[in-house]
């Protein structure tokens, strides 16, 4: 038996990424720049864990230059037994020669006897968008709307009625902010942020830092302020759960894993897994994580998320630990207002469909929207996003972001600033969750109950997701408070699967639909929930209390399909649904021939919905083609066609209406670009053969051509119009100057004509 390295010191210095590596069960590293060199976390087998620290690791793998090893989760006293039951004692941090490549370290450690998995820490980044100062406007608490539409009334977390009717936050509720440090001395956080003490409270998890030193950080202070800045103290801002009497509401446990600003080369990051476990063991019921891993690309994020979900990870273990054990004592008895914890993660600010750790199904992933009711384009999205909360708009307009507390007192408006990002959306959810615990918490109240209220009370269909389908609805505090869960008797073991959907399960061929089933029952927390369907257009998102089906009918052929919702092997619900046949668009009106002013650059507009209709009620997409693009240029915006003069002449314009399945119909019209300031056109001049006389509207016209001697050489009468001008054949006339006399209506005009 190979000697196992005696002492492996676990370092989680600047990383909370625990990327499982190729070893017994670890995938390959995609890009070494995303990982912290010189540090690794290993999972040791139960058999070897006890002697791991005593093994001579340096001798076992001299090429790695191992410096030290230590347990990630040191002996936890009264919680040690529970830690061991959760397997936390098997995680070790190893520090090795930083000059060794992470790939080599990965391979070398993975080859050691007793090591089941090797994680190389990923570099983390805080999920905040900006750090700036602005005037104080907190639209996210109560949005009055604005005339220009950038602020929509009601696009907020709907919390005021909760403050009035229920609670503004109880001091018994502790929210762990796993982030940079919250400013204990801030004027609006007095008495809110727990001091750092040996027995509990805030703590610093950065290696080489004093665990009792809580450095004031902009990002961490901002997040803490959103959750619990003191309300009603005549100072600074209001917060979601900051109480109502001027003395504060919920309390903040600042778990420091970031130190220094992002652009600071000396910035440090700490052990997030330790932070989560500490928070769970010391009274926190909610863990707010406004941070995530760095990825180079969306594909890299997808890969990273899959690896995080499918492979062992110390952070994931810590997350599970928090969810399962927060609010309980070492024996699993409920000690706080809630049994079990809620872990929130910001979904990320890259606008991608994947992220980690937020994509992990046991956490609540929070996306962001702006005051205009639109989901921010920077917000990561997908079925795994559980809820949307105010994070600020995409625009570089401070008033549209989130105002909260910051440490810097040198600002003109004091220590307050605007930031935007899913970092700011997440503490909004944490604050509402804290309010729910403050009011509903008590014996028997579980994290499943909280999650049920939080997610079921969210309002769907309110936020414009801008075509980026995401799960969940808009965070709605009042909705969560007024939500009535399905009653379950104490002895009722039955698991029920129910939905509020009242439709007929018949969907048009272009529709996107979302149906949510609630999982109720005493044992639901232990059951895996899933949705299976034979329809290729179905994706699903499930957790212990909810199964959500997303249908994109365009991804499937019309027909009949089924979906099965399962809660383990205990409960099952089968539903059938139909994707209806698609009908091609039809033309309802022929567009009139159009005349535009070639002497002006002003466009002429056509509303295309006047000419086409979709039998399925679908919003059609339009295209336009022009036979001669030197006469007119076109632009289509939704259903509006702009015709912009580019020259003179007549051309054919073809409109095409298409539905989402590509079926189409078309219509054509003639377009004439002329100088509409003139009531009569005579062209070309000089003329060789045919002279055109064109009135601006259909009318009887008489045109007579005279020589300069007064002889009437030609005379012609007829009905003429803009698209049917009068044609005079002058090819038989001698070269010279002529006078064209045109009579139409009561108008007589004389034009000098040159014939050559």
């Amino acid at each position: 038996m190979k000697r196992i390295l005696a002492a492996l010191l676990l370092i989680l210095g600047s990383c909370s990424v625990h990327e499982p590596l190729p070893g017994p069960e670890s995938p390959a590293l995609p890009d070494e720049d995303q990982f912290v060199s010189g540090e690794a976390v290993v999972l040791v087998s139960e058999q070897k864990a006890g002697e791991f620290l005593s093994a001579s690791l340096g001798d076992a793998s001299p090429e790695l230059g191992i410096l030290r090893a230590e347990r990630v989760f040191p002996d936890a006293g009264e919680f040690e037994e529970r830690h061991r039951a959760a397997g936390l004692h098997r995680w070790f941090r190893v520090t090795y020669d930083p000059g060794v490549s992470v790939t080599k370290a990965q391979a070398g450690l993975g080859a050691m006897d007793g090591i089941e998995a090797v994680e190389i820490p990923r570099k983390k980044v805080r999920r905040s968008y900006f750090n700036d100062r602005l005037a104080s406007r907190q639209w996210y608490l109560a949005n009055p709307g604005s005339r220009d539409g950038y602020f929509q009334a009601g696009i907020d977390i709907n919390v005021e009625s909760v403050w009035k009717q229920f609670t503004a936050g109880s001091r018994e509720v502790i929210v762990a902010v796993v982030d940079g440090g919250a400013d204990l001395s801030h004027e609006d956080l007095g008495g809110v942020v727990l001091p750092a003490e040996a027995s509990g409270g805030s703590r610093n998890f950065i290696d080489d830092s004093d665990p009792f030193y809580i450095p004031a950080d902009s990002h961490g202070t901002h997040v803490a302020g959103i959750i619990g800045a003191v309300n009603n103290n005549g100072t600074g801002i209001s917060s979601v759960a900051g109480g109502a009497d001027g003395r504060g509401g919920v309390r903040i446990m600042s778990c420091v894993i970031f130190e220094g600003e992002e652009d600071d080369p000396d910035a440090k990051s700490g052990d997030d897994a330790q932070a989560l476990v500490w928070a769970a063991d010391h009274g926190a019921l909610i863990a707010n994580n406004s941070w995530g891993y760095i990825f180079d690309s969306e594909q890299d994020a997808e890969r990273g998320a899959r690896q995080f979900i499918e492979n062992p990870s110390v952070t994931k273990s810590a997350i599970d630990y928090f969810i399962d054990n927060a609010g309980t004592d070492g024996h699993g008895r409920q000690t706080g207002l809630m049994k079990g914890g809620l872990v929130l993660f910001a979904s990320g600010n890259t606008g991608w469909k994947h992220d980690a750790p937020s994509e992990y199904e046991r956490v609540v992933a929070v996306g962001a929207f702006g005051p205009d009711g639109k989901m921010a384009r920077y917000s990561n999205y997908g079925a795994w996003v559980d809820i949307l909360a105010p994070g600020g708009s995409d625009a570089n307009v401070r008033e549209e972001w989130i105002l909260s507390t910051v440490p810097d007192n040198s600002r003109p408006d004091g220590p307050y600033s605007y930031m935007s990002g899913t970092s700011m959306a997440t503490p909004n959810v944490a604050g509402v969750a804290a309010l729910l615990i403050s009011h509903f918490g008590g014996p028997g109240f579980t994290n499943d109950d909280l999650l049920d209220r939080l997610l079921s009370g969210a309002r769907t269909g309110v936020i414009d997701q801008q075509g980026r389908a995401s799960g969940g609805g808009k965070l709605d505090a009042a909705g969560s408070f007024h939500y009535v869960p399905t009653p379950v008797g104490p002895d009722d073991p039955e698991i029920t699967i129910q939905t509020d959907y009242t439709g007929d399960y018949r969907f048009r061929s272009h529709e996107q639909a979302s149906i949510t089933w609630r999982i109720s029952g005493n044992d639901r927390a232990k059951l895996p929930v899933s949705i299976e369907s034979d329809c290729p257009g179905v994706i699903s998102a499930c957790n212990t209390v909810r199964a959500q089906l997303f249908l994109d009918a365009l991804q499937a052929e019309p027909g009949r399909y089924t979906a099965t919702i399962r809660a383990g092997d205990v409960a099952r619900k089968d539903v059938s649904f139909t994707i209806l046949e698609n009908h091609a668009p039809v033309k309802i009106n022929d567009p009139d021939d159009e005349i535009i002013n070639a002497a002006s650059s002003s466009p002429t507009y056509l509303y295309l919905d006047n000419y086409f209709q979709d039998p399925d009620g679908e919003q059609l997409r339009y295209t336009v083609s022009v036979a001669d693009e030197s006469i007119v240029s076109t632009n289509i915006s939704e259903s509006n066609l702009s015709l912009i003069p580019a020259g003179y002449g007549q051309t054919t314009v073809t409109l095409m209406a298409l539905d989402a399945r590509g079926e189409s119909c078309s219509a054509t019209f003639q377009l004439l670009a002329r100088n509409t300031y003139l009531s009569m056109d005579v062209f070309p001049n000089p003329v060789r053969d045919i002279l055109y006389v064109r009135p601006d509207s259909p009318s009887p016209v008489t045109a007579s051509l005279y020589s300069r001697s007064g002889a009437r050489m030609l005379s012609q009468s007829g009905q003429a119009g803009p698209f049917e001008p009068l044609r005079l054949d002058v090819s038989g006339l001698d070269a010279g100057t002529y006078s064209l006399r045109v009579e139409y209506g009561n108008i007589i005009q004389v034009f000098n004509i040159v014939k050559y």
Partner: protein
Amino acid sequence: MRKTVFLLLILAALPFSGRAQTLPLLYNPANPRTMGLGGADLALGADAWAVDGNFAAVALSESHFAMGAAYGRWAPELGADNRFNLGGWYRSEALAFGLSAKGSIAQAANLSGPAGEPLGATVPRDLAFALGGAWMAVPGLAFSATARVVSSRLDAQTSGTAFCADLAIQYASGALAAGVSATNLGASIRYGEQAWPLPSLVKGGVAYRSLWVDVCAELDYLARSGMMAGLGIEARPLEQPGEPRSWLILRAAYHYGPADKGLPAFGSAGIGLLFEGVELDFGVLFASPELGKSLSAGLSYAF
């Protein structure tokens, strides 16, 4: 005389043919006297602008010198060309020499492309310069020849130049006079790659002259257009026998021409004011919807 009448009858029988419209300046009345007499003054005595009329009459004139300038607005109902006519001559015994310049400047024509797009404007203009010579062969019979150069500009890309000549005969005996001329004889004018024939005319006229009134008649044939005719009267109501010419001259005439060729019909009137050899003349056209209100004014001097 009989041959002349016979020739005129032959010409009158010719069918109307062709549509000579090029360079109308060369056959439209360009001075107030000709305009007032409806263009029928071929057989009357010479005026200052005779180089452009019947220069042979200059050789039979009693005056030795004449010069004049005229300006007119032509066809205001059809665009109003501006026209001018300068002329002068000198006679010494049986020979006479003369010069003239006349022109027509049209109103601006708005140019447009094949789709009606605006391309600016052009001002078409025609100019003609002539040099004439006359010789009295025997008393009462004279011949003349006039050389003319014409420049025409339709637009910036289209212009042309042509040379032509006039030949004329004038006979006078007592109160009667007769004249025959062939005008604008020459090659075509070329605009770009295409050539167009000049408006050649054969004209014949007679006149009766008395103390108080002159009556003139004329028959013209415009090549490719057909026959035209005119009858005019010039009255001097204040004339006294043995006295110098009175100061007042009145004119009236009627011109006949086809409506769709050449020079269409019109009525005309004119007035002249004479003092010490200086004559101020005015002429106006009427009774023509196309040419009505055309007018000309001129100042001339003769001795």
